[in-house]
């Protein structure tokens, strides 16, 4: 459930990412290719632009409505060319127990926090373990929690794993914070005897770097909630493509080449039905991208938690 999209690199046509391709993010609201689910619980995005006023702060747009009907979003996306982005469409079970509200929309970013975060996946039995995480969340962070979604708690956990008092965390700080958050969740699951398959693909950005995990706790284990025969037992998907710039070449949107890599797109699923220029982020891994010496650097590491 949910779909996430993230970008880092040259100024990019936001409307193309959200609308123009045959499997664009907004298309995935009603017709995702790699899962059978309607993602109807809202949309959120944070976009950074190095040329904007206060470039370290993201532009934020969120709506708890079904975003394909949102004329403002369509209009805005046609005017924006961000250099970094996290965008997310929220999918929840089709039940009256779910809370569809602004406070549950990703990405999460509080006040002066250095990083924003979105998630694709669900923590099984989160209600049972939620308060076991509290000792690992700093009080000044915990008091920002407003909503009911597991992601907001994961975000609070990630912020609390960052070294206190450091205004500009390094890549390694971010990586350790994400891994630390996953470890705390793993411990809480063990303590509560939770061993159901729970995908947790996280995407974090501060506008200058992008870090994504493709990770599932207890992959392949289903107790009370077996997937239906029509569903798959697949690992939660995450794809990426890297190159010079995301643009239209010969009538198709692709990551075009260049002298060196300078742009990266990460997405729950390829943005085009022809996925031939997209690569899978490996399972149980963390992908980190940053700019350095005018180019883009990417590394992946195994998450053996």
């Amino acid at each position, binding site marked *: 459930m949910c779909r996430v999209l993230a970008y880092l690199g040259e100024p990019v046509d936001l409307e193309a990412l959200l609308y123009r391709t045959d499997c664009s993010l907004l298309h995935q609201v009603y017709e995702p290719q790699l899962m059978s689910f309607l993602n109807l619980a809202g949309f959120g995005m944070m976009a950074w632009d190095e040329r904007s006023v206060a470039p370290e702060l993201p532009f934020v747009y969120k709506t708890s409505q079904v975003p394909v009907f949102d004329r403002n979003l369509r209009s805005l996306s046609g005017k924006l060319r961000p250099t970094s982005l996290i965008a997310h469409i929220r999918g929840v079970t089709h039940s009256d127990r779910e809370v569809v509200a602004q406070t549950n929309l990703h990405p999460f970013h509080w006040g002066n926090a250095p990083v924003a975060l979105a998630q694709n996946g669900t923590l099984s039995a989160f209600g049972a373990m939620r308060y076991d995480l509290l000792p690992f969340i700093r009080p000044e962070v915990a008091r920002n929690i407003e909503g009911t979604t597991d992601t907001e708690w994961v975000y609070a956990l990630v912020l609390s794993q960052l070294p206190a008092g450091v205004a500009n965390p390094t890549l390694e700080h971010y990586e350790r914070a994400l891994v630390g958050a996953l470890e705390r969740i793993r411990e809480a699951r063990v303590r509560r005897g939770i061993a159901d398959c729970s995908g947790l693909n996280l995407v974090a950005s501060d506008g200058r770097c992008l870090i994504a995990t493709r990770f599932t706790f207890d*992959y392949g284990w289903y107790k009370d909630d077996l997937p239906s025969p029509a569903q798959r*037992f697949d690992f939660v998907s995450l794809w990426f493509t890297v*190159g010079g710039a995301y643009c239209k070449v010969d009538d198709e949107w692709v990551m075009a080449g260049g002298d060196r890599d300078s742009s990266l797109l990460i997405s729950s699923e390829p943005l085009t039905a*022809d*996925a*031939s220029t997209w*690569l*899978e982020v*490996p*399972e149980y891994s963390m992908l980190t991208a940053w700019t350095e010496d005018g180019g883009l650097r990417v590394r992946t590491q195994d998450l053996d938690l």
Partner: protein
Amino acid sequence: MTLPPHLRERHPARARIEAVLAATPVFRGLDDAELAEVAGLAEPFDLPAGEVLFRQGERAEQLYVLEAGLMDVVARLPGNREMLLSRVGAGDVLGELSLVVGGPRTASARAIEGTRGLLISQEAFSRLRMGLRPAGAAVMRRLGRLVCARLRSRAEALGGRTAEAAEPDALGDARPLPPGDLDHLARLDFFRGFGRRLPELASRGARLDVERGTVLVGAGQRPDRFVVTLRGAVETTVEHGETRQRIRLAGPGRAPTYLGLLDDAPSPVACRAREAAHLFTLSPADFTELIDGHDQLARAFIDAVTEDLVGYLVQAERRQARIVAAQKAPPARTSESA
């Protein structure tokens, strides 16, 4: 893709078709009756130099047997780059996986010289399979072995080793499959095609429970059993030095131990439980008997193995593409086709 009329050759004699088919790895070894059945499905094609036979991403609907000519098989990479997978000619087969799964093409094929040959559509081949014709099972069995050979080639291209054998862990005792597992089996991809014959298959197998980290097959070893994951996950890795590249994550309904079992040679990959796992296991003798068998249980087994192997190959090729893309160097050619 259906070839336009001007690229279709006038229908050649049936004897020539059978001779061309018999010379290819997929159809070699079929008896006369089986070969005649397959030949009845084949249509000729003729492609000038420079023309594209199929493009990556297109829906795969035909297998092509090359009788003469030369073609390049290339996979696209991000950033306008390409990975040359192979150069193929007379006697080679392209797109054979499309007979099993109709997903998107994983590579493009372009004629370097004028090329002619035969095509067989997935639709026609499906009719053969659905009719439970012997030729359908025979071709599926051949396809399984071909995919296995290609997997071995991919693993070795990524540095998989067979020279030094690494010992697997001592595994606990397998036990009869609990009756409650039958319902679970029926929901998993590997077992969906067995229908009423699933209890018979289950009675020949056993269940083995392993802890996370258990090595089922060491690189350089031959697997001592066939395994399908029921719960949890088993990863298949190519290992060289300190690095370990995963080429398959076999979650529920997927099998990790084909290499070394289906092709009777040391495995170039290691298999390790990435999560604690419940496994369905078959002895090598039962595996071989089913693969070589002709009854309905054997046919369902051959179909399940071949379809799963194709998924394994697709996953391994994606891994290879990612590794080549990360290297940013001119990709190495491999000796097999896409």
